[in-house]
């Protein structure tokens, strides 16, 4: 019944990458001024490019992309409308950041952008937790998305952090890897003791080679590199991004829908 939903995989992962980068940037802004003004603009350009790439990808999951603007019509109850609005506002603030912050940061703007980005993340979490998927009809999509934002934001952000702040960003990255590993190993096991459709979801995730590839490539391997070298090399974000893309594909393709079991025991 499900598919990999490639446009949504790209949209959620890349938009969460940009939210994560801004959030890590906001944390950095509280521990002193940035000592590398030449990197400020390039960092925000990467944030904007990732977000734009995600938003362009999201258009391809619509049967009629020309109707995209109308997705704001149901803000009263549809989380998808709220997601579209909050992500649009986030993009607007990122553009303002790119324009205004050339060689000097603006902490107020960074924090505001990060808060709006987190709001967009919350709306995404609500959009992808419908009643039809009992395993994720809860806070889990939001938790998964926060983990993605923290992992990608810190691993990509490492390249833009000044030397004095690299230990801080590296700590965020390491903690995110540990939290991600624990979450993604434990959650499917908990599903195994749930109702029938939830149990089937747990089995489906555990049986998916992509799930294990994501655990190894995106979480265990980077953690092993940090553990053995006692450093966070700048290239680790490639592994993390590959892991997140595989993990999101599992999220969309292997989560079981209630309707697949009608006529059976629930």
């Amino acid at each position, binding site marked *: *019944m499900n598919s990999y939903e490639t446009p949504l995989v790209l949209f959620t992962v890349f938009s969460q990458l940009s939210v994560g980068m801004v959030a890590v940037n906001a944390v950095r802004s509280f521990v002193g001024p940035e000592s590398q003004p030449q990197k400020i603009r390039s960092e925000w350009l990467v944030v904007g490019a990732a977000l734009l790439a995600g938003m362009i990808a999201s258009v391809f*999951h*619509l*049967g*009629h*992309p*020309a*109707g*995209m603007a*109308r*997705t*704001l*019509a*149901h803000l009263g*109850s*549809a*989380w*998808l*409308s709220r997601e*579209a609005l909050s992500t649009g506002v986030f993009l607007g603030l990122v553009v303002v950041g790119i324009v205004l912050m050339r060689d000097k940061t603006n902490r107020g703007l960074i924090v505001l952008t990060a808060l709006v980005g987190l709001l967009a993340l919350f709306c995404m979490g609500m*959009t992808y937790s*419908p*009643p*039809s*998927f009992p395993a994720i009809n809860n806070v889990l999509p939001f938790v998964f998305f926060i983990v993605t934002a923290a992992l990608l934001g810190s691993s990509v952000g490492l390249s833009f952090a000044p030397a004095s702040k690299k230990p801080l960003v590296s700590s965020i990255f390491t903690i995110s890897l540990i939290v991600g590993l624990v979450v993604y190993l434990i959650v499917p096991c908990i599903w195994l003791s749930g109702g029938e*459709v939830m149990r089937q979801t747990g089995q489906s995730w555990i049986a998916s080679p992509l799930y294990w590839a994501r655990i190894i490539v995106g979480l265990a391997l980077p953690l092993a590199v940090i553990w053995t070298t006692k450093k966070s090399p700048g290239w680790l974000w490639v592994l993390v991004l590959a892991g997140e893309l595989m993990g999101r594909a599992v999220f969309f393709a292997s989560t079981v*829908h*209630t*309707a*697949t*079991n*009608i*006529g*059976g*025991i*629930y």
Partner: protein
Amino acid sequence: MAKQLAFFVDSDKCMGCFTCAMACKNQYHQEKGVIWRRVYPLAEEIYPHRERAFYSLACNHCENPTCLNVCPVKAYYKRDQDGIVVHEQEKCIGCGNCIRSCPYGAPQYNPVLKKAEKCSFCWQRIDAGLSPACVQSCPVDAIQMVDLDQFDATGLVHYAPGFPKFPALNPSVRFRLPKLPVVVRREGI
């Protein structure tokens, strides 16, 4: 309670002939693979007998429809006069959110129009004083259209075994469960 039309599925009468599903297909000529009404066989754990039992299901026209709540372009509305949930396909942009969100799998993706669609309860036929195609076609009267406000639901079940329970949505469908066949054995043979 506002008037709410509903499907009454008499699983004790249903013999799984698929006439209801075929009548729906004949009426609307959906694209290949798009099915508004399905006939689900009950699993052996629920109906443990050699004979099979079935639920004929389509959109349940819920009191609080998920499809309507999640649609970003307001392509769904619920009719005040009878509670039928209508999908306005001309408004649909094919985002698939209703298809992902409905726990009963009612909205389907039309790959030709690139839009969602679902059982309309044949509201045009109802407005013309006719029964829905599936109801009219059933040879054993196993699927009926009822008004929940007037309907005597004694002995009927809202959430039958094998049918997902979502009280927050309050699906309007009602079931009569299939009776298990009586096995008669002659002693001493």
